[in-house]
């Protein structure tokens, strides 16, 4: 019997959905093994179709995207009820992802910028989307835009995590094959990724890491064979889970941590600060300060993908 699968996106870009399609000819193997019952990006099913299912009807739900509004949360709860296994797919569902950067601001700051201040928006009446609107005969509702972006496991019980922005297509395929081969690991496991740090699969030459100067990418002509960090260019490789095949590194840019923290680490950003502290070569306190001050945006560099899952969670309000 074929597996019954639901695929959904919350606050997402659709990159994870496309990564599923990017399994190329393997998509035929997937089609052989699974029947799809929800996939807004690619197929026409409605929320009502899912609501009508018996609880536990689906074998697995793949949820990509963060929880940004009440609709994202409602569908996450609905799919959790209808599915035996819930898998957080991609950085947004796993650790908050790029939409999680909004946790540096409040809900009102985001709405004001987008609808009132944006240079490309004409909104003379200053209208901001409301949750409910009605006149005599008609009423409309919109989801509530939350103050805080959440990860999937902050709103529902998650069985497995398939990290990456987006996950490497073949890692999606191997993770799915764990389901139909009955080889799923212990609940709560990361699937479709490595256990060690990205440095472990990074092809660049590594020597001794002693940094006396941090550099932004336009301030140097980087050596394409040498470790970024050893050249003073911040790379989150030491604190990021392997599994991507060093995609960004092989494209000539340093890692920003989309696969989330390495095994047993909760807070990727703090771990990076700690990693950096151990390789900075400076004796005087003022010298350390000067080097650290040269990082233009530590929060959004060390926590590029992981603010909602971190111990910081969001800006204090």
């Amino acid at each position: 019997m074929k597996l019954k699968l639901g695929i959904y996106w919350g606050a997402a870009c659709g990159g994870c959905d496309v990564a599923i399609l990017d399994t190329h000819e393997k998509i035929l193997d997937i089609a052989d093994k699974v029947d799809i019952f929800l996939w807004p990006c690619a197929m026409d099913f409605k929320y009502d179709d899912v609501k009508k299912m018996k609880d536990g009807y689906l074998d697995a739900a793949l949820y990509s995207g963060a929880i940004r509004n009440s609709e994202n949360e409602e569908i996450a709860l609905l799919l959790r009820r209808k599915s035996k296994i819930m898998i957080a797919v991609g950085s947004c569902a796993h650790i908050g992802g790029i939409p999680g950067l909004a946790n540096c601001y409040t809900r009102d700051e985001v709405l004001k910028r987008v609808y009132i201040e944006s240079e490309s928006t004409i909104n003379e009446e200053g209208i901001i989307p409301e949750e409910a609107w009605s006149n005599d005969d008609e009423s409309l509702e919109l989801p509530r835009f939350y103050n805080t972006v959440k990860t999937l496991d902050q709103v529902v019980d998650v069985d497995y995590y398939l990290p990456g922005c987006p996950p490497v297509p073949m890692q999606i395929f191997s993770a799915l094959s764990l389901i139909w081969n009955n080889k799923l690991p212990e609940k709560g496991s990361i699937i479709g990724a490595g256990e060690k740090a990205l440095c472990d699969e990074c092809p660049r030459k590594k020597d001794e890491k002693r940094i006396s100067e941090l550099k932004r990418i336009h301030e140097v002509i980087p050596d394409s064979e040498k470790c970024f960090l050893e050249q003073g260019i911040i790379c989150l490789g030491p604190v990021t889970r392997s599994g991507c095949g060093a995609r960004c590194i092989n494209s000539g840019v340093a890692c920003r941590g989309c696969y989330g923290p390495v095994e047993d680490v909760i807070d990727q950003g703090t771990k990076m600060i700690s990693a950096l502290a151990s390789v900075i070569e400076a004796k005087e306190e003022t010298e350390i300060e000067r080097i650290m001050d040269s990082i233009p945006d530590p929060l959004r560099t060390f926590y590029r993908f992981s603010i909602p899952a971190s111990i910081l969670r969001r800006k204090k309000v």
Partner: protein
Amino acid sequence: MKRIEIDPITRLEGHGKITIFLNDDGNVENAYLQIPELRGFEKFVEGLPVEEIPRVVPRICGV
């Protein structure tokens, strides 16, 4: 007044919902396209180092 909801609209990047109101004769009185989605890139890229922008904004749409 009869109400028809198409939720979600599918096979596109993003979230959308269409609500149609029919009058007593069964004709369309009003139809609304609702976009229930916002992430706020306009805000959270502010002040980000310029060399990082090309690594963030592709996540507006990955389709």
